[in-house]
């Protein structure tokens, strides 16, 4: 084979390797970054609609990532969990503005509470219509479901949903009622409301100060 032919075959080979690198490394990374940008936009929209949620998502996402790593999640699953956290309240866009913004939740009527509780189901339904992120629908739908759900025949929420629930409610209680009450809430609910493994990890982080919002 002539030198010229070798040179050109090498050039084509290098070009092909470059393309493969782009296809398997750069393209997934870039797509992921774009999707995460879109998901951040959802989170921002919800926070703008309900200012009392402002800043919560970032704190919950950080805590959920730490808990997931302690539970042995790999980078890919941690990333998916992070997206679920950011998408969890997307259904709030269908909840009346005044219900959430004008009166504190302890004053809500049963009917208003039921309306608010729809947001998980609505969020799941919205996500199911978007193929790129539909895999998060189950987690979003059950992110307020208790660990034990006798009314659904004992079916458990997804493990991601259990992490999201424990982290989101811990952060909510810590912010509104103080860290001690948040720890009490988690301890009392472990095994019934919260997955005991998840609750244990959140409590460990809370006691070392890493989970304080």
């Amino acid at each position, binding site marked *: 084979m002539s030198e010229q032919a070798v040179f050109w075959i090498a050039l084509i080979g290098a070009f092909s390797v470059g393309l493969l690198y782009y296809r398997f490394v750069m393209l997934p990374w870039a797509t992921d970054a*774009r999707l995460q940008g879109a998901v951040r*936009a959802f989170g*921002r*929209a919800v926070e*703008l609609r309900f200012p009392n949620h402002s800043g919560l998502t970032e704190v919950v996402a950080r805590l959920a990532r730490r808990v997931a790593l302690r539970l042995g999640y790999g980078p890919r699953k941690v990333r998916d969990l992070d997206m679920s956290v950011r998408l969890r309240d997307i259904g709030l*866009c269908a909840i*009346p503005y005044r219900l959430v913004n004008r009166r504190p939740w302890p004053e809500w009527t049963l009917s208003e509470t039921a309306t608010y509780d729809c947001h998980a189901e609505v969020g799941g339904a919205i996500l199911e219509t978007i193929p*790129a*992120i539909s895999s998060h629908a189950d987690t979003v739908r059950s992110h307020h479901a208790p660990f034990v759900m006798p009314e659904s025949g004992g079916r458990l929420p997804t493990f991601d949903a259990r992490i999201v629930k424990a982290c989101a409610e811990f952060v909510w209680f810590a912010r509104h009622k103080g860290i001690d009450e948040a720890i009490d809430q988690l301890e009392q609910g472990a095994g019934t409301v919260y997955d005991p493994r998840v609750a244990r990890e959140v409590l460990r982080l809370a006691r070392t100060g890493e989970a304080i919002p």
Partner: protein
Amino acid sequence: MSAMRRPAARTAALLIPIVCLMALLAPAPLPWSPPIDAVALLLPILAVAASAWSDYLRISLGPWRLAAPFLGGCFVLLGPFWAIGALVAGRICGWWVRGGRISWFSETYDLAAFGFGLIVSLGMMSIGVSSGAAFGVVLVLVWRASHLFAARKVAGSIPAVFVPAGLAMAVGGLIEAGAIGWSIVAAVPTALIGWTAREQTTADAKVQQTLQALALMLQRAHPYTHAHIERVARIAERTALHLGLAPDRAKMVHEAARLHDVGKIAVDEQILDKPGKLTPDEYAHVKLHAPFGAAILEEIEELRSISEWIRFHHERPDGTGYPKGLSGDQIPIEAKIIAVADAFDAMTGGYDGGEKRPYRDPISPQLALVEMERCAGTQFDPDVVSAFREALMEESKS
């Protein structure tokens, strides 16, 4: 038969018999082989890449797109064989990039013209005409044929001529060149480009679907706005084209117009739907939807450029708009376009009054146009109003 297929059928009916007749008369082709040197592979590869990726990037330099310089380089430096080979490969990659969608009209036309061009080029080369000259003659012949028989949209399109003629020359060249081995070597990166481009298309679709969900979120909160945003997006794009914006820019205006009210997610729907006059506090709350919309879209890198248009789509040329009170040229032209399209749709209640706002009775499109022209220079940009009128007339005709 649809309007699209009639010209295709006419073209096929006239060209195919000609091709068959010439095939019967075709003499043996000329011996000719392509050079294999430094640019022989690089230029075609670049041409193929540019053909495939320009679609994805939505970058276009007129009908020739980015592949043209490389194809031109192939043609000048290497002769038609490589130029045409790159063109064919680029076309296949471009087809992949577009997700394999086929226009049967184009395919029929291309097939008929290809056969015609192949016979003509081989015939000319066999009687001693150089391959380059044969290529030129085929181009002219196919172009003229398209003028005679095909639809107007094909007649004026250079690629529509270039592609079938190129395909014809490629097959002729391959037959003569005996360069099958090198073709296979070059096919590896070509196939990889196509595959990668297809993956890129899939990734783009995922992101697009997610962005569309933003519009869906808005629809959940304020159902009446769905048809409104689609109408505003369509007429805004058309207005942008009438103002001389590049097609890619006009597409961005379309996208921005679809998302222009996304900030209303963060506004109390009872105030948005309130009949009658708003209190100053309520109006101040409603005005936040423009910066809110920009803040939401700023999270998405590829929409950062349009977030400014959304932030300023309620600014007025006389400086009395919001949120910043910008005036004249300080307001991006794209924001001015969205402002005009949005205001017209709001005034007319969806052109036929079927979607009237709770706080305003709809008026006829004619009255709305008169009103907008009255406000040109103060509330609206006069050039944009003028382009909008033209766009509206064009849309009503179509």
